[in-house]
């Protein structure tokens, strides 16, 4: 039984909507503030409108759709006014500093790694999603994000049209809120797969007060204030104006995935088993989701459910699968390299990672991202990738910290004798304009003696920018009460 005020929290923050796999991300420009406020009021549950935001409270019956809404700094400023926005910033500076910068700010881009061909100047124009007539693609007019989750592509189109029809007319008789960008996501085979071939979305933070304890599940819970804003919580490293309470913040990302380059990199390993092993070392999981830490020799279908995430790196958790087979633990990253995507984004009990003295609790990110574009084999030249939200109460300490300190930079673990100090996240690859020392993926063969020497590492050269940013927004996901206040143009 949750202790959180779930009726006031948007569902997407705490619930995965995993069975709703036909998704549409709709980004709007607010052309008429009065009309936009009316739309906010309509989206409040109980308004009587055809569609409203989905709350985090449990369902009695599965809904036909789920909907979440967010606003950028520009959008929020329009809706509540500059004076109110400044007051929020004054009261909640820690929480809002990254949001106030925005995703397209040069400082943000530098922190997150959106440079070179991932730079904001290139966003919104390469995947064909731009929809704001008469304007060139840019972040400037993007004010609101609405995501609709449905179970079929037909239902998705129906509800998108329903939402568009809900938009009040502005003073000029045209829609007060204009669609500027649309990105649809559809399930691949398997449905939770991404274009690089991995099953995704396996390890999500367990939220204190929301996720019920499960027998034999050792995974630590994260205080809810790291996802649902609650400045009064003792664990919250921030102050929060009441307007922000029960809301959340997120980075909406459109990430192009270069499957051809990725496959070419893997091909260097040789035959298929060798490629599969290299892919597993890069990710930290076999493509079916089996953690290489738990099953180092290959996928293991018997490992399922929470057992897929129920493991540590330095000392086994009480109910960790196959732990008995590992007399020495993975201190040297021999099974799961420090450089692997999963280990560097969630180092678990590895406190030798810089500033991971709390099982990464203060840095976890809730992910709601799904594949877009056709399967690679069907149309190699098509645009494809991953789009969705990466959420946390504090973008600076969570999303940006992980992107910069653990994913982009090597040297995050000490000691780490690998030749390039674990370089960069191998699934993302180095920035095009910063490849020095970052273009190799190093891992330690199973046969290497421990402790390892630098010469023992096997380096695979040619890491490239496999994931390119094609769009990004920092959004505030208001609580129901804040959405209502936005409809009134107020913050109290």
């Amino acid at each position: 039984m949750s202790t959180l005020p779930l009726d006031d929290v948007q569902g997407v923050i705490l619930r995965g909507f995993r069975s709703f796999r036909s998704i549409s991300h709709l980004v709007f420009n607010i052309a008429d503030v009065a009309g936009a406020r009316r739309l906010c009021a309509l989206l409040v549950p109980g308004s009587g409108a055809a569609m409203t935001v989905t709350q985090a409270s449990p369902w009695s019956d599965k809904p036909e759709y789920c909907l979440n809404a967010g606003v950028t700094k520009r959008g929020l400023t329009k809706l509540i006014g500059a004076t109110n926005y400044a007051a929020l910033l004054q009261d909640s500076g820690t929480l809002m500093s990254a949001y106030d910068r925005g995703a397209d700010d040069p400082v943000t881009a530098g922190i997150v790694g959106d440079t070179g061909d991932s730079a904001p100047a290139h966003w919104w124009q390469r995947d064909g999603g731009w929809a704001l007539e008469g304007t060139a693609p840019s972040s400037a007019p993007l004010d609101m994000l609405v995501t609709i989750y449905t179970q079929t592509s037909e239902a998705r189109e129906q509800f998108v049209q329903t939402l568009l029809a809900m938009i009040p007319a502005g003073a000029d008789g045209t829609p007060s809120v204009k669609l500027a960008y649309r990105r649809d996501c559809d399930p691949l085979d398997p449905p939770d797969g991404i274009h690089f071939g991995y099953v995704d979305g396996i390890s999500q933070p367990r939220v204190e007060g929301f996720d019920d304890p499960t027998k034999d599940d050792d995974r630590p819970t994260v205080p809810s204030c790291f996802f649902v804003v609650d400045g009064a919580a003792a664990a919250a490293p921030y102050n929060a104006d009441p307007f922000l309470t029960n809301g959340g913040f997120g980075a909406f990302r459109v990430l192009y995935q270069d499957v051809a380059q990725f496959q070419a990199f893997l091909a260097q390993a040789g035959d298929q088993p060798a490629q599969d092993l290299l892919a597993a070392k890069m990710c930290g999981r076999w493509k079916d989701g089996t953690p290489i830490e738990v099953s180092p020799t290959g996928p293991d279908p018997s490992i399922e459910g929470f057992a897929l995430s129920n493991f540590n790196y330095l000392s086994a958790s009480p109910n960790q699968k196959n732990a008995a087979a590992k007399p020495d633990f993975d201190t040297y990253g021999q099974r799961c390299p420090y450089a692997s995507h999963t280990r560097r984004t969630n180092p678990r009990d590895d406190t030798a990672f810089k500033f991971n003295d709390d099982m990464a609790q203060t840095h976890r990110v809730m992910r709601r991202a799904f594949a877009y574009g056709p399967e690679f084999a069907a149309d190699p030249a098509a645009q494809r990738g991953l789009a969705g939200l990466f959420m946390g109460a504090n973008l600076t300490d969570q999303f940006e910290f992980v992107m910069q300190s653990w994913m982009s930079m090597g040297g995050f673990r000490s000691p780490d004798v690998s030749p390039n100090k674990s370089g960069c996240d191998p699934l993302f690859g180095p920035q095009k304009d910063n490849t020095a020392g970052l273009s190799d993926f190093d891992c330690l063969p199973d046969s290497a003696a421990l402790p390892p020497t630098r010469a023992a590492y096997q380096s695979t050269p040619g890491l490239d920018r496999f994931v390119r940013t094609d769009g990004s927004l920092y959004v505030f996901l208001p609580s129901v009460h804040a959405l209502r206040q936005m409809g009134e143009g107020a913050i109290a």
Partner: protein
Amino acid sequence: MTDTNVPITVLQPSDQQHMLLLFLPVIKGAATLLAQNTNTLLSAPEAGPDLRAATGVHFFMVTAVADGAASTLPVPTFQAAEGKDLFVVLSIYDAPFTPYISAFTSNVFIAAGLNKVLEALDESGIVDPKDPTSAAYILSHGGVFKNAPNFIKLLLRYNFADPAIPAATSKDAIANPQPNPKYFLGGTFPGLTIGSILQNYPNAADLWPQASVPITFVPAVTAASSSDAPAVPVADPAIPIAAAPPAAPEPPAAPAAPAAPEAPAPPPSYRS
């Protein structure tokens, strides 16, 4: 650095060394208390995971200067503003500090210690107490733990050093001259991080245990040692700044600085 046999010509941010040099204005008579609090903070790593290697602090120095104290050298050195004490912190550390700031300040124990530092500050005449970056504002709004970005801005106000200037060789400085450099930070071995050093000490945990043990520093016998000045810099017993555990993370260094704006000019009350 994938090839160990060629000179290092590129250093990623994680491998760069930087300096922190804080001049903190302190309530008159409070420098001693601040020094004691600093020592309390320095003992923090013994309570939790050993963070010494991860923090990347090579060396640090803290010194307190009492209001009106004369320079200990025949030239002006660190001097307190009139009516205040001065607390000076110097540190050399690895990597950019921006990503680490929140990690330090979100450590409840360290944040509580940093609050003690703020309680000792005297920012009168420097910043309005209503300013969100003032010590008074931070303390009245939940302290460092809940105000990390503002705390960083406070530190930047008193940081002479520039976190954007990495330790470099002289040839680096000649080859890549910075416009109007604030200072040159020499690095004998740029890129030689604490982590890199420890690669060669698999028994580091035995040599330098987390629960630090007393070390006897045997004085070197030199010509200088026969003079009044000690050959080995030993803490002045009149200033209770105990010798700190080796390589312990030094608290105010933790939240040091992202690419820093220039610190404002010191108030004119400084005496020469």
